[in-house]
């Protein structure tokens, strides 16, 4: 199928399958899946700028589907999502500016590659340690099968004591997040977490859900199911902003994004429904390979010089 905007000739079946796989991951883990979508689009010959912009457009649609499904399960904290969107957009701008500065200095590829490998490996290692420790301590107490109602949102973490002391930081203004079960938390803390996620999004590319989702769980103390749903809601806002910005620069082939999304729409629903069958620590444990895939892609490009 010929796509006139980007001038690419790509099989629509390939696009639907890629969208379906990323849709499942997005619905289940609350990530955009750029680290797979970008290389998958590059593999079939789409220019890098189009791969980035088109992927962002597809993420908007996929997240809309997943959020509607998560909302039906009570997994979305709208207030938290809106606040985080502000921090994310601010962080993304700063990250993008830093990339420009490194480009001018002439060593952007090496610096970004090394930082991203360190970040990905750190997240995976920490989440593997925490989720395994939590699962061992909870052995026999976690519900089996479909977990329903408020009980299913109750989350246990081996990192819990640290999270609680972070939550107790009294930096005015303090706000309540009743949907997430948090009585009081500093607004600045939420903005900081969102800013860091946005910074890595602008700096490393993609939506940086692999940083934001764990940060929401471990730093803000949001239950995993809610972190997944709320992160997706926040992704709608930040990815729409990114899509607009890239489309104006001529980096979005919306026809490719629409075709990819036909697969993602059904995948995202399956992923969102699957979260109802798993307790928080199990979702976090299953999350561990995602940043490792990201790290593997960066290591490959660093050593071979081929940008996937």
């Amino acid at each position, binding site marked *: *199928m010929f*796509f*006139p*905007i980007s001038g690419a000739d790509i099989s*629509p079946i390939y696009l*639907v399958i890629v969208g379906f796989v990323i849709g499942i991951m997005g619905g289940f883990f609350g990530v955009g899946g750029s680290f797979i979508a970008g290389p998958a689009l590059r593999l079939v010959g789409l220019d890098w700028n189009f791969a980035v912009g088109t992927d962002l*457009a*597809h993420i*908007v*649609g*996929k997240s*809309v*589907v997943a959020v*509607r*499904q998560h909302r039906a399960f009570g997994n979305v904290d709208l207030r938290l999502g809106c606040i985080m969107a502000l921090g994310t957009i601010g962080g993304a701008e700063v990250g993008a500016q830093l990339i420009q500065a490194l480009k001018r200095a002439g060593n952007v590829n090496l610096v970004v590659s090394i930082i991203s490998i360190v970040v990905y490996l750190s997240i995976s290692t920490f989440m593997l340690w925490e989720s395994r420790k939590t699962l061992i301590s909870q052995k026999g107490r976690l519900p089996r099968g479909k977990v329903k109602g408020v009980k299913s949102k109750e989350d246990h973490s081996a990192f819990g004591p640290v999270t609680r002391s972070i939550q107790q930081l009294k930096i005015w203004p303090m706000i309540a997040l009743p949907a997430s079960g948090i009585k009081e938390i500093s607004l600045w803390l939420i903005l900081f977490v969102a800013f860091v996620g946005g910074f890595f999004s602008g700096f490393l590319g993609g939506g940086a859900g692999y940083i934001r989702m764990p940060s929401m769980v471990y730093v803000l103390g949001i239950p995993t199911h809610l972190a997944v749903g709320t992160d997706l809601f926040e992704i709608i806002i930040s990815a*729409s902003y990114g*899509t*607009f910005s890239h*489309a*104006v620069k*001529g980096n*979005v082939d*919306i*026809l490719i*994004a*629409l*075709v990819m*999304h*036909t697969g993602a*729409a*059904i995948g995202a*629903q399956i992923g969102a429904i699957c979260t109802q069958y798993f307790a928080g620590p199990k979702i976090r444990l299953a999350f561990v390979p995602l940043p490792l895939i990201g790290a593997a892609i960066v290591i490959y490009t660093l050593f071979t010089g081929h940008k996937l």
Partner: protein
Amino acid sequence: MKKETAKTLRAFAIELAIYALLVVAYFFLVLHFLGGWLYQLESQHRYIYASVAILLMIGQAVVLQNVTTLLLRFIRGRAG
């Protein structure tokens, strides 16, 4: 339990088959007609194209989700 799982999987397979037919029809009809117009828009009016792109994406998301929900309800209704 196994009977229930088999029933769910069967409903899902039927849903996927119908969904695939709808998607193929969508490719040939909607994208064929939209392609030329979007190409013109992208080359001449970038800001309008950017807004239309986001609206199309959100619109398709809402429509496709409603279609899959309806399909699932219809298939389950017939199976049940």
